[in-house]
């Protein structure tokens, strides 16, 4: 019984640690694939890889100019709307980029993993790490300007935690994009819908009480609350953070197991 118990816990621990061990075991390959991504996205440009960071930074600058100087948006509340909006929008851009790229990652890399002895399990982690590489400095810079360096460091830590939390979604979306091609067509619409259902463009208290209760079912809303709490000191219920942790614990093992099970079919699918 004891032996079975140890074996069960050992398997559970292995499943939770598997994506991290994958990163460590294949760090050289991951580094090369990230470099490949950077070159793919910025080849022929003068600034090269700097564009990856410059793009969201410029986007934030444009939002700031439009909302603060042109439209002069002001809203009552504990935090200026612009500060709230820029912080939430950055987190949202990170999430949406990671999720959209995860959906296509297996198709993009099929010429490699179908023809070589290749650890497919590293692939869903590539868009995730790419997102971290891009948004970590931007988040740090923007939040530093808005709320100071301590908030900047906190926001960067939270971005890393958000990336870890997204791991099971990356694996599941990678499979979804491979087996259900229609999902790639529908996903941009679903992402837009999710953005409007999350408190990015508005603060939660701006919603009518009836709609506010719907936020309970949206983990992205919880993440935005956690980030706003850490950066601007807005109120947050501890249950929101616990809920996010529980969801991750529930999703990671099945996501990993299903992905590994599907590997042989992936190599034969396209």
């Amino acid at each position, binding site marked *: 019984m004891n032996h079975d118990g140890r074996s069960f816990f050992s398997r559970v621990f292995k499943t939770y640690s598997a994506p991290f061990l994958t990163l460590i075991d294949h760090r*050289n*390959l991951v*580094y*090369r*694939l990230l*470099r*490949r991504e950077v*070159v*793919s996205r910025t*080849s*022929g440009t003068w600034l090269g890889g700097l564009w990856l960071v410059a793009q969201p930074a410029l986007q934030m600058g444009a939002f700031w100019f439009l909302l603060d100087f042109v439209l002069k948006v002001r809203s009552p509340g504990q935090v200026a709307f612009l500060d709230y909006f820029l912080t939430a929008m950055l987190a949202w851009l990170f999430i949406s980029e990671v999720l959209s790229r995860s959906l296509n990652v297996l198709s993009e890399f099929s*010429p*490699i993993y*179908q*023809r*070589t*002895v*290749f650890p497919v399990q590293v692939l869903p982690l590539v868009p995730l790490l790419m997102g971290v590489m891009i948004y970590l400095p931007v988040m740090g810079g923007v939040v530093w300007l808005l709320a100071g360096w301590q908030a900047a460091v906190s926001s960067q830590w939270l971005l890393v935690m958000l990336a870890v939390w997204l791991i099971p979604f990356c694996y599941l979306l990678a*499979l979804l994009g*491979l*087996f*259900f*091609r229609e999902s790639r067509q529908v996903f941009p619409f679903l992402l837009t819908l999710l953005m409007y259902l999350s408190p990015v463009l508005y603060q939660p208290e701006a919603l009518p009480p009836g709609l506010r209760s719907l936020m309970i079912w949206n983990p992205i809303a919880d993440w935005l609350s956690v980030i706003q709490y850490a950066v601007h000191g807005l109120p947050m219920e501890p249950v929101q953070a616990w809920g996010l942790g529980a969801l991750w614990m529930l999703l990671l093992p099945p996501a990993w197991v*299903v992905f590994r*099970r*599907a*590997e*042989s*079919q992936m*190599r*034969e*699918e396209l």
Partner: protein
Amino acid sequence: MSIRLEHLSKSYRHYRSGWDRARALFHSSMQSSERQVLAPLTLDIGRGEVVGLIGVNGAGKSTLLKLIAGTLRPSTGVATHEGRLCALLELGAGFHPEMTGRENIHLAAAVGGQKSADTERLFDSIVDFAGLRAVIDQPVKTYSSGMMMRLAFSVATAVDPDILILDETLSVGDGVFARKSFERIMGFKEAGKTILFCSHSMYQVQAICNRALWLDQGHLRMDGDPVEVIAAYNEFMENQNAQAGSEGLALPRQGVSASSSGKEQLTRLRAVEVSVDDVSGTRLAVKSGQSEVSIHVAYASDAGGHAPCVAVMLVSASGRPVASASTLNDRVSLRRDVRGNGEVWLRFARFPLLQGCYWIHVFLLSEQGLMVLDKARMVAELVVSQETLEQGVVTLPHLWSDSMPGIVTSPQG
């Protein structure tokens, strides 16, 4: 034992939709149509064996190599191997055109499972072998396809494998590099490495391998000495052709330098001319036992390298080899001018083949006769007629005698 296959098989399942495929991850009984590409196979391959896989397209050769290499997962059974395995299944997989040769070496090595330190250590030898030092820091999109292949081959074979798996190709690139790549593979053979390759060239299988596996529709038809396996395979193919009514005449006719794909290469056939009794042409009438058939071959070669060999093969209308002659077998050294150009004539006096149609193929081979450097297939058709009632394919030199030796009758005079 180097490689062990135990009840190894592969079937591909086809599902009606992605939804069915996803459900199959949880229910193995999910309905699907199944196509078996490799029937359960059990065999051992010893260390140092060079094994050639032969069979028609779709026989399961590439599938078997992929299963052993690990790019495909078997449906049943296991494939195990001892030692480091290097598989050249797809050269250049993962290369990115915008990245430099240097970056692509690191990327391809990482994709191939090499450690970063190993790649660093081998970097210079990889670049030198590919002969691309001058352009190694330029994006590979500026490389020709031949340069790309050289780089990919150089990366893939830079490590010292215990087992080498090659799909279809035994040499890559053009001219000089094709020879280099072939020599590297032969070097692995001489070093006692285990080599598995599939090829449609029976000549190469027979010349290089000490064991041949013939796969047919996913089943192992024969396993043994290459000479015996190839003979059985050729007979099978001839029967297949006869049944299908696809005679050799239906094959596309190819001229000189057909293998060079229009690219300029150093060692190549320049001209091939066939004449019968001093009459040249591509469809020639021949009288069995009387006509003289002459084949003139002109070639170009690398003046600094070894002289190539020339081989001529006569095949029946169904494509079966009937006879051949090569300068290597006959120990004839070819003379070349300072630029590496040369020519040679082959004469068949009193042409000994009996009535029928025969095609002539001409090959330019490496000095050891293992690698085909250039070829010209079906350069001429010989339509042989005979006045006698002799049966068969060829008139063999022969002697009749009664009990007393020395009293002879010979049609050869």
